[in-house]
């Protein structure tokens, strides 16, 4: 049976992308000093999304108001929550997870996607007419629905810019809410407690920061590593880390301060 758009079965990933152990969930990641992906950024990608052209590498850097990097967002709010790595529908659902995990207000992120993408007729992974709520399409002639830009122009003519924007943002919230149950189920299937996710996120961020800082200082060109995500501790295991003056493993207990090292 085909999964609903944006949703993923966390048990269906190959071990090369996600696996379960007694210690926690193992998620392989790759580091490049510069990724040849059309962005060229330094940083890390989950191996599961390495071939996704919409995914840009992320470093340890967090948002100004959110104590989490894009990589930790991709890991916790997309992959482990059972959502696709990219696409507007998946992002709507993952952002609800981000908001609940960090306490951040996600309205601005939705508004940005509305203004920069949807208003111009662009939606990733599905046609705009499939993404929009059926109630918005009832008065748009069928021949206008195939072209994203034309569809948005028709809707703007009907509703006006302010009302259209308001409805589109509200739709993002609706889509986001649709993923809440699935995310909870995904975490439970992986043996992870959603009640611990805020602390797990902070712990992963600490581990990533420690390793990424060292990797950048040492000018490492590329690395393979594995995140281990658990309720009690999180770690990043670095393959052949000693070749770069790194430890084999960086571990931090969930909810505890990072030990000085």
């Amino acid at each position: 049976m085909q999964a609903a758009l944006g949703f993923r079965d966390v048990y269906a990933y190959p071990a090369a992308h996600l696996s379960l152990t007694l210690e926690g969930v193992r998620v392989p990641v790759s580091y490049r000093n510069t990724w040849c992906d059309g962005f060229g950024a330094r940083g890390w990608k989950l191996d599961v999304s390495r071939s996704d052209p919409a995914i840009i590498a992320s470093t340890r850097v967090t948002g100004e108001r959110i104590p989490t990097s894009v990589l930790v967002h991709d890991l916790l709010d997309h992959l482990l929550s059972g959502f696709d790595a990219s696409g507007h529908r998946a992002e709507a659902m993952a952002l609800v997870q981000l908001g609940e995990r960090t306490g951040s207000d996600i309205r601005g992120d939705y508004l940005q996607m509305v203004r920069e993408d949807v208003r111009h007729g662009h939606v990733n992974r599905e046609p705009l007419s499939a993404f929009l709520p059926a109630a918005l399409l009832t008065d748009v002639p069928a021949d206008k629905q195939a072209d994203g830009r034309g569809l948005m122009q028709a809707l703007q003519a009907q509703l006006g810019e302010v009302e259209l924007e308001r409805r589109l943002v509200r739709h993002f919230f609706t889509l986001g809410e649709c993923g809440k149950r699935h995310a909870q189920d995904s975490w439970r299937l992986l043996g992870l407690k959603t009640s611990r996710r805020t602390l797990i996120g902070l712990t992963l961020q600490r581990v990533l920061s420690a390793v990424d800082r060292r990797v950048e200082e040492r000018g490492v060109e590329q690395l393979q590593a594995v995140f281990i995500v658990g309720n009690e501790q999180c770690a990043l295991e670095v393959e052949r880390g000693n070749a770069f003056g790194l430890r084999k493993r960086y571990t931090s207990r969930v909810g505890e301060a990072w030990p000085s090292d």
Partner: protein
Amino acid sequence: MPDFDMELDARGLNCPLPILRAKKSINAMNAGQVLRIIATDPGSVKDFEAFCKQTGNELLATSQDGGEYQFNIRKS
């Protein structure tokens, strides 16, 4: 006359978001047009150099004023 066709305000955004936003803006522009990006993330200097080298877009100018960085990129 401004020496750019479109401006992207990436102030307050940290790596990798300025690059992500810039790529989206450039995709919507025509060849030869210039995008100006204003950013506050120091890492964006290296990021935009790598971005232009990889995409073939031309990094016309980079400047810093206080805590702000400006980049002018011409779409190839």
